């Protein structure tokens, strides 16, 4: 797959600011433009990640951000893929660039989230799986996280302390990230003593919902070189795969999996296929990865990703964690940014924010949380209703 260049990245700090999401997005966009040394007038395409929580302006986020930055006649698109929206927006931008439709694109997403559980749209809507799971079962997002955590304990002997150690590790990373919402270092006892949300997961095992914004300026390799970017971080692969039938692992927002009677389950499940696709595009494998940003909606899910991305065999994630491999200073640091546990989820911004972190890391600009010698990084993420999301960047 042809590569594109990441010229600049920017973020609005995550928090619970309660302000208009447009403000976060434009802040991030301006920072990315400045970082790229690209004038807004040079951007030919704006790829917005959609928020569904902020009314109409959120549904047309591409044009909302374009207008906020000043209409220049740039082309625009807006993408929604739940938590994977940012990767989809990046993929749309890549398509525009590689087809020659534009040289430079801005990818941007931002959100303002309400307090508490993410919940479905209002009304009586039995034709919406998202509505059914709340109404009939009370299956909130943490319920699915809890099911997977318990399954991991049963299959692989994980303990609640293993899950807590993920939080402890990531919080240690977050101390050095001024853009994170939570920058306190937590100990094991802090996690152990936080209230249970969905057994076996506790409050500090589960990510919050946040306000935040992230953006990147991307271009063709030719344009980058012609404009003085001699060694930019490059996007080597993007995965936005859907599951392959039968998907036999229960996940958001479904009430049931597919059946594996008629068609055997594929050897690699949906979550595994997300990374598989991006490795193929990039022509690289797990052994090439220096660091990863993965979607730790819960601490336990981070461990699943180690295996799904091929960092270790099934059941060995706890060992990787305990051996310090995935801590900064280890061989393959995971969530050097602090991860979702430190940021909280700002849905349309999150997949972009993961790439922002990798970009800083690959440019050796991550300060105290710098991963030494990082050259290749991968993100992994998943949006409900079957949206895979992974981006592989290299330098």
């Amino acid at each position, binding site marked *: 797959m042809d590569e594109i260049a990441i010229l600049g990245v920017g973020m609005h700090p995550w928090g619970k600011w309660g302000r208009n999401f447009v403000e976060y997005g434009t802040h991030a966009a301006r920072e990315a433009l400045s970082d790229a040394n690209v004038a807004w007038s040079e951007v030919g395409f704006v790829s917005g990640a959609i928020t569904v929580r902020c009314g109409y302006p959120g549904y047309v986020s591409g044009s909302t951000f374009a207008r906020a930055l000043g209409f220049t006649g740039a082309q625009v698109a807006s993408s929604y893929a739940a938590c994977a929206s940012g990767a989809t927006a990046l993929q749309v931008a890549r398509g525009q660039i590689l087809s020659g439709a534009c040289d430079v694109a801005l990818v941007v997403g931002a959100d303002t989230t309400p307090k508490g559980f993410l919940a479905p749209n209002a009304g009586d809507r039995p034709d919406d799986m998202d509505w059914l799971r709340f109404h*009939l079962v009370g299956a909130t997002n943490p319920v699915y996280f809890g*099911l997977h955590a318990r399954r991991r304990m049963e299959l692989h002997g994980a303990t609640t302390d293993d899950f807590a150690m993920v939080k402890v590790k990531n919080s240690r990373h977050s101390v050095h990230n001024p853009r994170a919402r939570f920058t306190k270092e937590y100990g094991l006892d802090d996690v152990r003593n936080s209230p249970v949300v*969905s*057994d076996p997961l506790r409050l500090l095992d589960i990510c919050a919902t946040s306000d935040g914004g992230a953006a990147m300026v991307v271009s063709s390799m030719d344009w980058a070189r012609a404009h003085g970017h001699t060694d930019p971080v490059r996007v080597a692969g993007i995965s936005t795969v859907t599951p392959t039938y039968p998907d036999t692992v229960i996940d958001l927002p*479904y009430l049931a*999996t597919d*059946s594996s009677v008629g068609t055997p389950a594929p050897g690699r499940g949906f979550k595994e296929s997300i990374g598989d696709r991006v490795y193929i595009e990039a022509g690289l494998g797990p052994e090439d990865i220096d660091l990863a940003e993965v979607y730790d909606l819960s601490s336990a899910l981070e461990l699943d990703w180690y295996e799904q991305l091929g960092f270790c065999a099934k059941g060995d994630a706890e060992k990787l964690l305990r051996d310090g491999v995935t801590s900064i200073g280890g061989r393959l640091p995971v969530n050097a940014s602090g991860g979702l546990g430190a940021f909280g989820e700002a849905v349309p911004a999150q997949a972009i924010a993961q790439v922002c972190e990798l970009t800083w890391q690959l440019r050796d600009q991550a300060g105290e949380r710098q991963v030494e010698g990082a050259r290749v990084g991968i993100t992994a993420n998943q949006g409900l209703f079957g949206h895979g999301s992974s981006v592989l960047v290299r330098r």
Partner: protein
Amino acid sequence: MPKTRVPAVEGMFTMDPDNPHLIGGKVPGRDSWFFPRHLAGGDPAVSGDVELETVELGNRGRLWSYTTSNYPPPPPFVVTTDPYVPITVVAVELHDEKMVVLGQCVAGFGPDDLHVGEEMQLTLDTLYEDDDHEYVVWKWRPVTGCAAEDQ
């Protein structure tokens, strides 16, 4: 005057109190089931001009995993206890269809009472009520004294 028992959502399960079944969809001539039927998808076989059969799914399975919601879920969940009593949610793999189906566990069973692999049975229970109706949903119940190894 007794309240009328009605399903919380029509067409997703049978209302036989002694032997309830989930109502699924099935691709004719193919071992491919869906739940709920009205939101079937996934199998590329349904991309053709296929009229799904309506079938009753098996009402026994093995416990795949379990968890709780220690905080009241937001609407459209209807909280019926005050103060809120945590619910237990289970995922059960049906024996015959080899598909994992979610549901609440009946009251009285928490994480300490359950173990992965144990035999579970479908049952009906009240989800919430109004002045005239009792709204019913499927739930899962452990088949006590019936170890998973025996299946």
